[in-house]
Each structure stands twice: as C-alpha cells, then as structure tokens.
C-alpha cells in the first residue's frame, strides 16, 4: 500500500503511496503509519521528533479522498512548520489540494 523509508542522517521519512487513496485504504494506512511512526520515535525525544522531515510521495497515486487529506494534515502536525511536504502530485491531485485550501500549508509540490 505504501513504501516507508527513513533516512537517519537527514532525519527524513519518505512515504511513497500507490494507487487509490480512498476512505477504506486510508483507515488502514492511518494505523500503519501510526505504528511506523511510534517505532521510529521510541529512541527520540519530543523536540528531536519535531525536527523530522516528512515527505509524502504521490507519484503513483491517482485518486485521493478527503480521508487522505486528513491523514496528510495529521502527519503535518507531527513536525515543525515547513518540514512536511507532498511531492510528485499529478496536476489533478494538486488541484484537489488547492481547492481544499491546503496547497500552501501542506507544501504540495
């Protein structure tokens, strides 16, 4: 459903998603992402965690539901402002974030 990659040097998490991010998929994703994050954060203190970078790569995503937007917002809140970004969105998905008014906040590239 998604690939999870952590670069310890840059303290950057990259999640690469695939396919349709509909409500059902997102409810499973949410749990998986949470558990990954918890396992990763066991050895870090709270301040260090805020410095992490989180990147969602949507290269192979062709649909996002409102649950996925919520999921992005949740992930964004885990880190400092500007440390979350969404990359490789196709123009239709970019427009979806634009219409939701979250294009800037979620740093959609």
């Amino acid at each position, binding site marked *: 459903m998604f690939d999870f990659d952590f670069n310890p040097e840059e303290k950057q998490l990259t999640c690469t998603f695939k396919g349709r991010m509909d409500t059902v998929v997102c409810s499973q994703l949410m749990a998986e992402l949470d558990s990954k994050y918890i396992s990763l954060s066991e050895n870090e203190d709270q301040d260090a965690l805020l410095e992490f970078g989180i990147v969602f790569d949507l290269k192979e995503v062709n649909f996002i539901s409102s649950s996925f937007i919520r999921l992005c917002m949740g992930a964004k809140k885990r880190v400092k402002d500007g440390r979350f970004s969404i990359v490789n*969105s*196709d*123009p*239709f998905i*970019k*427009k979806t974030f*634009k219409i939701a008014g979250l*294009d800037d906040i979620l740093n959609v590239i």
Partner: protein
Amino acid sequence: MADNITERANDILERAVFAAAEFQEFNQEQTNTVVEAVYRAALNARIKLAKMAVEETGIGIWEDKVWKNVIGTQLVYENIKDEKTVGIISRDAITGITEIAQPLGPIFAVTPVTNPTSTAIYKILICLKTRNPIIISSHRNAVRSTGEAARICYEAALAAGAPEDCIQMIPAGSRDFTQTVMAHPRVALILATGGTGLVKAAYSSGNPAIGVGPGNVPVFIDESADIPYAISSIIRSKTFDNGTVCASEQSVIVEEKIAENVRKEFERQHCHFLTPEETLKVEKIAVVKDSMSMSPFIVGQSVDTIAEKAGISVPKGTKILLAELSGVGKEHLLSVEILAPILAFYTAKDYHSAIKLCIDLNYLGGIGHSAGIYANNEQRVMEFSQLINAGRIVVNTPTSQGAVGGTYNMLPPSLTLGCGTGGKNITTENITVKHLINIQRVCNRKMNDRFFNVDKDKYLDENCDETDLRYEYHKNH
C-alpha cells in the same frame, strides 16, 4: 453633509426611476431605434474618444483604444441588434412556456480607468437595449472622457426618442456619495468593472451585482505549439493598449525542452529578458509589496517609460519585458497581475510541473478569469482546461482580444467578463443583454401524464418502495 449626499442620491435615483417607468412602455422597435442611434454616434466618435481617454488618463495607446471603442460599439451592436429583449421573446408550443422580457430598472455602472470610453459605451448599449436607464460612475481619473462618451450617447438617445435621464453620470471624487448611490434601494443592479475593492463594495451594497474583478492570466505553450506563431500572438495581445486588458497574458509557462526555443523566439521578436538585477528594479516600481498588487503608476505604460522609471536600459523598439521567475507569490512579486507590457516567464521541468505552475498562478488572484493555451494537441487542451479555473480558456489566440470576444472567436463581445463564483460572480459568461433582463415564464397548463396516471394510493402505501413507484411512473397507460 450626509443629508446632502442622501438628497443628491435620491434625486439621481428619482430621475432614473422615472426614466425606467417611461422606458418600459417602449416596444422592441422603439428600443432598437434608440440603440442604433447611440451605436452610430458612438462609433463615429471612436477616434476622438480614444484620444481623449489616453490624454486624460495617460494610459495606453490611442490607436488601440480606437479598437476597443470599435469592440464596445460596432461589435457589441452587431451582436445584440437582432436579440429580442422586449416583451415576448420566445414561445414554445410543446412545453407551453412563453418567455417575456422585462427591464430591471436603474442600473448603476462603474467604469474603469483602463478602458473608460469603450466600457461606458458598451454598458450604455446593453442597458438601453434592455430598456434600463443607466447611471455611470467613472473612475476619478477618467471622468472627462467617460463623461464625453456618455454625453454623445445620451444626445443620440434623446434624439431617437429615448426617455429623459436614461443615461446619467454621477460626479466622481466622493467615495461616500458613490457608495450611497450604489446602495440606494431603487438601484436594480450594479454592473461593476474594476478593482477588487470596488467589486467588493458592489457586492456589499445589498443590491444585486455583477462585479468583475482582477485576473492573473497564465498562458501555457505546449511542445506541440507553433512557437513563432504563439510568440507573435502573445506579443500582439500583451502590447495591445500597453497591456491594459484584464485578460492580457500575465505569465508564460513552458516545458524545459522547448524553453530555449521560446526564449530565442521572444528575443527574435524584440522582447527583452530582464537580468536578475533588472528584475529587482522593475519589481520595485511595478508591484506594491505590502498589498501584492500592481502599482497604478505603471498601468498601461510603454516599455520605454517603464524602463526609464526602473532605471534600466533596453534596446530600442523592445515590445515586452520578460522576467524569468522560479516561483509564485510573495517572494516573486512579478507573478501578480500587472496591466503593463511585463510578462513573467517560467520554465518547468516537464508537462505536469508546468500545469501545476499554471494552477498556482491561476489561484494567485485570478480565479475564474481567463487563461490561454497554445497547443496542437486536443487532449492537452482539454486537460489544461479542466484543471484551470477560468471562465474563458482561449486556444491559440491572443488572450486580450480572445477573452473579450467578437474578434478571434464567437464569444459575445463584452467588456465585462464574468469570473464565476471563484471571482465572486454569479456567472462565468461574458456579460451581455441576456444578463440585464428579468425573464418571466408564462406556463400554460401541460399535464405531466406520467405523474397523474400513478395510482396516488401507492404513494401512501408503506409497502411500495422505489422500484414499484418507478414502475408505476414509467409504465405505459
């Protein structure tokens, strides 16, 4: 003072209402006679009014203002002259519905400094064609030329039998007074063309309004486009009246693979790419940083004047200044709407990045307005069009002239372009006579047999579900 303002507003509206009362007695023929007379007089005055407007406002090029006056008079007239706008305008024997056009009443029209006389004439023509008196409020820097346009139209209208006070102009200068008239309960509709503040004031007045605000027109040149043709078309549009049309190109977006060719073609056709230092200098004089809006001092100015103000030197005969930008928004001031021959130029690494950039530009103050694409690939044209929020997407066409309609395509010629709900408008259409009438529908009795043939007890029966009711509704009786 306040009373004085109210009294003056009451006086203007009383005159307008009396004119409206008389006007609604006109038949189509009498109305057409008035419109034709006004069109003739205004078209004959096209050159004088164009020169006056440039002289008074210091904006634009008189020859291009003549063109605009022609659009506002001849093209608008040719487009509306045969329209039915009085009494019964359609009758459908099959549906039994007859449509009757009624005038709205006094229309309060605000006209801009960039296209003063053409907008005034166009609004006068569409108001008179729909038997609505018009009250014009001109931008304070264009009062004389707008007033002259209104006077010429008014005299012609009176001579053709139009009601007294069917065209009035309110003195400019007092914001309070303008707003009092705008919010007057006897105003039927506000037709506002101008800046964001004005449009907001129109919508806040409590009266119905068609307010058309700013644009920020992105133009995408696809790899399938004919590049020399595209560049010459963009130049024709962006230099037209020194870029004062709100539908003029604001940024050009290309993919990396054709960027060099596009750049060379712009240079070959006498456009100048600003160096980063020059870009900073132009930014300073062209955009007000705090409000992220264009400076009024460069609106409709020539390249030479802009270069002089910015303190840069450009080759003689330069048509457009291009600034290569890497992003959109506060850090890139030239990405905002600038009604002058200054264009932002973006290179994107691939097609998708280019389109995403267009979306960003589109949302930076230009939602719902216009956009352009140069491509010979129908699929890309359609994809671009579905992604961009614009009332008009013009294809392989100069956007200034294309969006206004009547010349490069069959859009209704208009100097007020609806921007849809994104631009806080009720329509994305080019505003014309059909927006200035109340259409009454006389509905003759035509029974819906399917509904009346359903056994009504079935609707009251809990055991009948949608499947049963659908069967009952659609079965042949």
